[in-house]
Structures are given as structure tokens and as C-alpha cells.
């Protein structure tokens, strides 16, 4: 039987694949690896890519997720603040394996659950220690200067970080933050009572304020109106005065013969006064009714 080059190629290819499966391994972008030789960790793989190793009984590869893990302390603990407030606090943190070798040796087979267990107790102590150093107003306050919310968070972060480093967990803490803050149930009822009375104060404040403001606006308006009218009156008087002054210029004309002027003024005054709904009673001496005096038989007219 003759050997065909194609079959040889295929055979070699299969062999190569088989060897590759035995002697190589891949580490993904999001992973780090530890290679153990006869159970002893000997090599750390921190860059992704293909790597060589001895086959199974000799070397073994452990791969870990090196991405940032999210961890939240599921207990909503009571902690005491520096000014003796009972506060409930829950924190979360992001951590990452930064030294796979240390991580692998510290926690059985590099179990993330085991690591979180250790972190949980660390963060609980750190949390109560840090909050115990601060009054409540550091966490909760309107003034920016007083509020040390982020400072408290970073203090917790520092404590946990230094503990992790001291224990050589091979872990890096990326961030720590508060997830929840609360008060014990009995305290919440007190808070509600306080809120109720605060609301009451606000209600009466609004009521009184409203009435007072409205009254103020109204009286101001009335004052302004009166002022407007008064100044208008003053202006009117001034205008009339101007008119009179102007008219006085014509008086020179009348000076030529005051007697006639007087007579004419009286005439026009008389005429003006008798313009509307007037009743006049005459006797026979008034011209032109003196003409009637000559008649003997005239009667009263209705």
C-alpha cells in the first residue's frame, strides 16, 4: 500500500492538534492565570494570549476573572456615630485580583466566594470604625463644608485596602461606597413626629405670610394710588395757574375801559348763571318787562 502525501499531511495535522491541546492553554483578555507544577504555583500569567505548559499530571492551569468584582455587604448593620446616633449603613465595593499568585495561595483554589467572605468581615469592621469617628452631620448635611460623605467613603476604602495589603490577599480594592443609610425602626417614628411638627410650622407660616403679604400689597397699592391722584391734582392746579397767568395777559386790553369791562363781565356771569333749569320772577321794573307795567290787566302766568 502506497502512502499518499495528503494522508501524511492530515495525520501530522491531527497529531499537531492533539499536542497543542496537551501542551498549550489560552488566557482570555478578562482573565489571569496561575500555573502549578506538581501542585506548587510556579508561574503567573497576567497578559492574555496563548501559552505553553507541560501536560496535565505535571502542570495545571488555574484561571481567574481579573475584572472588577462587585461586592455588596448584604447586612444592613447598626453602627454608632460619634455623636451617638444609631445609624444603619450598607456599603458596596469593587475589587479586583491584582496578584493571582497570592490570591491563589490565600483562598482555597482561588475561590471568589471565599475571598468575599474575608472581605465582608473586613468591610464591616472598617465601616463601624470609620462611622464611629464621625458625627451624623458629616454624612448628612446641607452645607458642603460640613459634609464629609466622600471622605468617609475613602477612609473606609483606605482601612480595607491596608488590611488587604497587610494580609497579602492579592486583591486591590477599587472603590467603596455607601449603598444604603437608614435609621432603626423606632427612630423613624420619632423622625416622622418631628417631620409632622415641622410641616405644621410651615403650614402656619405660609398662612400668616400669605395674609400679611397680601395686606401689604393691597395697602401699598392704595397708597400709591392716592399719591398718584394727589400729584395729578397738584399738577392740575399748576396747569390751571399757568392758564390764568396766560389769561392775565389779556387783562391789559380790559384796562382801557374798566367800567365797560366790569359791565361785560357781570353780563356774562349773569348769563352763565342762568343757563340751566332756571326760574325767574320779574316785577314790572325790570327791563324789558317794564313795558308790561303799562298794562293794567295782566295776570300771573303759569
Amino acid at each position, binding site marked *: 500500500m502506497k502512502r499518499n502525501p495528503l494522508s501524511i499531511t492530515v495525520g501530522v495535522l491531527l497529531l499537531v492538534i492533539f499536542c497543542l491541546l496537551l501542551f498549550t492553554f489560552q488566557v482570555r483578555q478578562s482573565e489571569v492565570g496561575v500555573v502549578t507544577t506538581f501542585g506548587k504555583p510556579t508561574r503567573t500569567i497576567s497578559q492574555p494570549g496563548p501559552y505553553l505548559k507541560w501536560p496535565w499530571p505535571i502542570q495545571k492551569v488555574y484561571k481567574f476573572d481579573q475584572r472588577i468584582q462587585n461586592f455588596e455587604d448584604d447586612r444592613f448593620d447598626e453602627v454608632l456615630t460619634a455623636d451617638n446616633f444609631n445609624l444603619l449603613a450598607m456599603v458596596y465595593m469593587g475589587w479586583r485580583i491584582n496578584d493571582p499568585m497570592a490570591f491563589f495561595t490565600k483562598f482555597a483554589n482561588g475561590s471568589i466566594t471565599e475571598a468575599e467572605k474575608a472581605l465582608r468581615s473586613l468591610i464591616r469592621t472598617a465601616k463601624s470604625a470609620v462611622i464611629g469617628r464621625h458625627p451624623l452631620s458629616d454624612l448628612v448635611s446641607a452645607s458642603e463644608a460640613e459634609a464629609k460623605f466622600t471622605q468617609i467613603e475613602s477612609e473606609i476604602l483606605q482601612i480595607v485596602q491596608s488590611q488587604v495589603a497587610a494580609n497579602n490577599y492579592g486583591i486591590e480594592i477599587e472603590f467603596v461606597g455607601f449603598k444604603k443609610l437608614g435609621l*432603626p425602626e423606632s427612630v423613624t417614628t420619632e423622625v416622622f413626629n418631628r*417631620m409632622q411638627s415641622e410641616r405644621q410650622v410651615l403650614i402656619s407660616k405660609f398662612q400668616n405670610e400669605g395674609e400679611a403679604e397680601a395686606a401689604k400689597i393691597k395697602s401699598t397699592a392704595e397708597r400709591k394710588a392716592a399719591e398718584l391722584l394727589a400729584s*395729578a391734582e397738584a399738577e392740575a392746579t399748576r396747569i390751571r395757574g399757568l392758564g390764568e397767568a396766560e389769561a392775565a395777559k389779556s387783562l391789559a386790553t380790559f384796562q382801557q375801559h374798566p367800567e365797560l369791562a366790569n359791565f361785560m363781565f357781570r353780563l356774562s356771569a349773569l348769563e352763565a348763571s342762568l343757563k340751566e333749569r332756571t326760574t325767574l320772577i320779574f316785577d314790572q321794573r325790570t327791563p324789558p318787562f317794564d313795558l308790561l*307795567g303799562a298794562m293794567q290787566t295782566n295776570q300771573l302766568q303759569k
Partner: protein
Amino acid sequence: MNGAQQTNQPERQPPVPVPVTPEDAGSQALAEALRSSFGLIKFVMLGLVVAFFASGFFTVGPQERAIILRFGRPVGEGEKALLGPGLHWSFPYPIDEVRRVPITEIQTVRSTTGWYATTPEQELAGTEPPAGAGLVPGADGYVLTADQNIVHCRAVLYYRITDPIRYVFGFANAESNIVHALDNALLYTAARFNVDDIIVRDIAGFREAVRRRVEQLLAQQDLGVLVEQCDVESRPPRHVRDAFNRVLQAEVTRAKLLDEARSYENQVLSKANADAAGILNTAESDRTNLVATIAAEAERFEKLLPQYRLNPDLFKLQLLTETVGRMLASVQDKFFLPERGDGKSRELRLLLSREPVKPKTSSSTQQ
């Protein structure tokens, strides 16, 4: 091709237990059958190889990007690593691995740690669980405000992934990370606002502050996302809801009172303005009237003077008579009292309050 097939048989199938012996017809038939079945297997294997490579084809949808990991390492750097929508090919599994990342579509996360315990049914119906004495820690969420009050807050954050490589390879669970950041932002911001600002007065400011804090946290943690929108809903605890509503009512009443006062102010002022303008106009017209009248009188005087000079008494009489005549035409009632025969004066009684009309009416008697 046929030859290759034949020669291939033993190589591909070394453990074939049947030696090919062409002596008897039975074994020859068997060999024939084997040969044809090997041919079939060969064909199937070829098909498998083709299928193996064809399985490297994949499509990327319009809302996503894909990253090829070759031996675990992303192919290409940064933006170039992202494959856009369309048909792509990669080596099949052990060599390449395709990771899909949603990118253009808007992602949503919700924070409910600051909200009271509620069920979806209650949420739909818009009802709330009955209020107990206090809030049970753990079950009922809330946030503490700067004036140490309790408020319920929840938020919805809409974001887009801008750096898929960081988002997928940097975080074991980026989404829950964002939820945590949102929780923290609500907590942090509420601790900086007074309860009235959160609920009524500065809702938009509170929302913006939450958004800023989330953005700051996400940037610090370098999550590779862009915040599109952040909705925040806040409510006073149901234990004190009534009190809050009453405050609102009081505020509304106050606003109403003020509005009324302002409209009264407008009314009074515009009336005063109109009146003032009226007064001024009257004064102006009085003035022009006066001036014009006097001027006219003066002119008339000028014209009459020469005539007067000619014969003063006659002229006066004429003028008087003329005026009285004109005047009498407009007088309503005229009475003539002739002298009594004996020359004594008559007694005349006047009933003055004639009509309840304008008090302008005047009566005069002749002396």
C-alpha cells in the same frame, strides 16, 4: 480522487480488523462494501471540515458590536477591535472567540434601594402598602435628607456604552456596578438637599445633582458609559404624606392670596392712573378754555369799545337788553309779578325743593 480514497482507507482507519483478502467472493463483497462506506465517511468528514470553517461566519446586528478574541487577546486595538453590523468571519472556537457588546441601544438601570417595599401589582394600581408605625430597615428603603428627614427616592438611569472593551473586560458585572453608583448618588445627593427641595421646590436641581454625582462616579470607575438621561422620583413617606399635602395646600392658598392682592393692586393702580390722567386732561382743557375765552372776550371788548365810547348809556342798555333777551330764551320758568295797585310789595312764597335732581338749579328773584 478514487485512488486517494483507496489508499487512504488503511491510514485513516488503522484499526480495521478485516484484512483485505481477494480470494473468496464473500470477503471481496465485504471489502467492496467497506470501501464504499469509507468513501461515504470521507465525504462526511470533508463536509464536517467545511462546516467547521463555515461556523466561523457570524452576523452583527445594528445595535451591537463584536470583538474577536484570538487566543484570548482582542484582535485590533481600541476602536479597531470593534466589528460593526454585517457579516463577519472568524476562526472557530479554540482559536477565536466572538464577544458581542450592545452599544447603540440605550441601556436602563433602576435604583430602588430608596423606595418603600411595594409589589408590581400595587405599582400598577398606584396604591401603596398600608403605613405601619415606622419603616422597617431592610424592607422599606429610604434616604436621609440634609435636615435629617426621611424621603423615598428612586431613579432610572439611561446610558449608552461608549467603550465596550472596558465595559465588558473591565467589570465582572458592569450593570450592577452602575446600579450601585446610582444608589450611592441618590444617597449622596439626598444628604445634601433639604426635604422641601427634594420634593417640591428644587426637583430639577436635585435630579441634576444626582446625575452629576452618577457621572462623576462612573467616570472615576472608568466604566466606559455615557449617561443619556436620569429620572428621579421622590415622595414623602406615607406616614407624613397628609402633612406634606397640607403644606402644599397652604402654599397654594398663599399664592392665591398673593395673586388676588396683586390683581387688586393692578386694578387700583390702573384706575388711579386713569383718574390722574383725567384730572390732568381736565386741567389742560380748562386752561385752554380759560385762555381762549378771555382772549375772545378781549377781542370782543376791543371791538365794542369804540361803539361804547360813542354813547355809553345807550350801548349799555342795548347790550343788557340783548343779553337778557337771549338769556330769557333759555330760562325754563318765567314769572312776572306786576306791582300791586296800592304800591305795596307782594308777598311771594317759594317752594324750593322742586325736584330731586342736580343741585345745580338756581333761582333768583328780582330785587
